[in-house]
């Protein structure tokens, strides 16, 4: 596939694939169109995603459906308090001959073709595990058995429930910064979807439900190439660059906009964050979204659509307000988009 010569037709083919991918997941996950769209964007931006939400809203189902639809090798691990990095990499057991053996662990078991690594309840794992994950996400490689394993196609999905805070370890900022998006999964709002989820027997057994998803809609090997083609093919004009920089500035210094949030001292709210990496992720995601919408240029709507998920977890606010983080950051972002003039 020669992307330089004919990227347009390739991209339009993949556009159809992407829409089909969304439809397949939408068959089993009801009322989460926005989340599905964001995860699709993340997939085509080759970014890692952290899902966050209440218990039982379908985070795991959603990720399993995605893994199935993307195709390729898939591994998952459950985060527990006693999980150590070695447990991801090595599998220690007694062999049939009674001797202790060390085999490749979950992370290495599928070899270097691993396309999706799904980390359940990531906040239950210890910081040591987070560190390993950090390396996996940042460099797509781990060291084991005295050599380096590379996972060129790996995409990490993690989920975290936000109800329980006991025996959990908050992710370090560096690890959170590695995630392209932090997506909040909430209950479906539409009555119809809620009713189906509760009463339709189809949704009672997740395993059979997932059989509905067509497997391997996307070719994980080609995703990286397509992602690069998208980044090249979708242009960002100077006006959009100026707008993005204005947004960045506004997030870091909201007081300059005259933004006011209820019960918040705006002058000390934002302590830092919105890293350059975050902004580059933002543009990456915005480009993919523009492509998903069938455009060859990024417009402010694209930035707005992905901004909360891409940027919210990168904004560091005063610890005083940390307990009310979600509404405050949401108000901050909404305010920034209302105030910063585009283009």
């Amino acid at each position, binding site marked *: 596939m020669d992307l330089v010569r004919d990227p347009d037709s390739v991209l339009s083919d993949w556009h159809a694939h992407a829409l089909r991918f969304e439809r397949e997941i939408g068959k089993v996950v009801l009322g989460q169109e926005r989340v599905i769209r964001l995860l699709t964007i993340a997939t085509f931006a080759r970014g890692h995603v952290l899902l966050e939400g209440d218990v039982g809203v379908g985070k795991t189902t959603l990720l399993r459906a995605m893994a199935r639809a993307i195709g390729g090798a898939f591994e998952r691990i459950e985060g527990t308090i006693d999980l150590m990095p070695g447990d991801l990499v090595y599998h220690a057991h007694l062999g049939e001959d009674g001797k202790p053996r060390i085999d490749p662990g979950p992370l290495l078991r599928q070899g270097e073709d691993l396309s999706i690594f799904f980390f359940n309840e990531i906040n239950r794992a210890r910081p040591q595990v987070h560190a390993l994950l950090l390396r996996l996400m940042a460099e797509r490689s781990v060291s084991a058995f005295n050599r380096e394993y590379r996972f060129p196609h790996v995409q990490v999905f993690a989920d975290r429930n936000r109800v329980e805070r006991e025996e959990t370890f908050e992710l370090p900022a560096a690890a959170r910064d590695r995630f392209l998006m932090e997506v909040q999964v909430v209950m479906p709002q539409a009555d119809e979807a809620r009713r189906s989820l509760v009463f339709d027997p189809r949704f009672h057994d997740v395993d059979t439900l997932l059989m509905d998803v067509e497997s391997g809609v996307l070719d994980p090997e080609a995703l990286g190439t397509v992602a690069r083609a998208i980044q090249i093919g979708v242009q960002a*004009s*100077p006006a959009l660059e100026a707008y993005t920089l204005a947004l960045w500035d506004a997030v870091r210094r909201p007081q300059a906009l005259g933004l006011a949030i209820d019960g918040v001292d705006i002058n000390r709210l934002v302590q830092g964050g919105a890293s350059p990496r975050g902004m580059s992720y933002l543009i990456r995601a915005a480009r993919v979204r523009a492509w998903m919408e069938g455009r060859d*240029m990024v417009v402010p709507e694209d930035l*707005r659509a992905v901004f909360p998920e891409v940027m919210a977890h990168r904004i560091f606010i005063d610890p005083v307000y940390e307990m009310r983080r979600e509404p405050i950051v949401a108000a901050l972002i909404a305010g920034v988009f209302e*105030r910063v003039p585009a283009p």
Partner: protein
Amino acid sequence: MGRLARILATLGLLATFVLLALPTSPALAQLRTVELYAPRGFGHVIGDTLTLSADIALDAPFVLDPASLPPPRALNYWLDLHEVRLEDHGVSEGVHRYTLDLVYQTFYAPLEPRRLTIPAVALFAIEGERRVPVQVPAWSFLMSPLREIVATGPGPAMQLRPDIAPPLLPTAGLLRGLALALGVALLALLLLAWQMGWGPFGRRRARPFARAARAIPLTLATAPGDPILAASRYAHALQALHRAFDATDGKGVFAEDLPGFFERHAAFRAAEAEVRRLFAASRRAFFGADPAGAQRELPPDELVALARRLRAVERGTA
């Protein structure tokens, strides 16, 4: 007291001047009574007007001959007849009653109190060919001088007193009305200016499209010049309109927000198609790096027209 005195005096005169028609006299058979009512008989000075009022009762079908009424005129060197009013009370119980008012003015200048007489007035009552004289009797009164014969006070004996100041017309109400009307007119003008966005009102917050329309030069469509400059002018015009949309909605309005915008501001639905073209054009201009395509999508003259249209929509006169 004065009123009572006048009534008493009138009654006294009445007794004097009542003439009873005698039934035996054929000439006076048709005249019942002539009753003269007069003011007091004394204390009149030069220039006074005296109103004599005569109640005349005739036997129907006799009527008073209007031609016999005296015309208002100067009767002699000191007495003017100013006005003659005849009031017909109609016939009741076979008697035809009239009231005749005679207004005199006296100019007699006596040196001492002096009795003067207003002469009798001869009238006629007619019925077909028959004529019956009716006499309003003479009346005498005392005129008094205005000044003493020999001056006793200091200074000139008789000096003209200054004219009385002319009475002022009551204009306060008129002035109030004028002020009120002017105030209302001014208020209406201000309201109109506010509504139309004239002058300083064009800059008010609630009229962002008025500001935008002002910011977009009329010459946008016609100005010649190099294409780069024209593109930048076009971009500025687009920006001005976008700022107006943002200000109207209170937040940034992007193309994807237009359905919500039209829901919140239904008046702009009238220009929905053009607005959508505007947003498509600005997408091309700003994000597609295709200013020429943008100007094809929405030519500059249509942009100017749209700005004007939106301003009209905004002030509700579209």
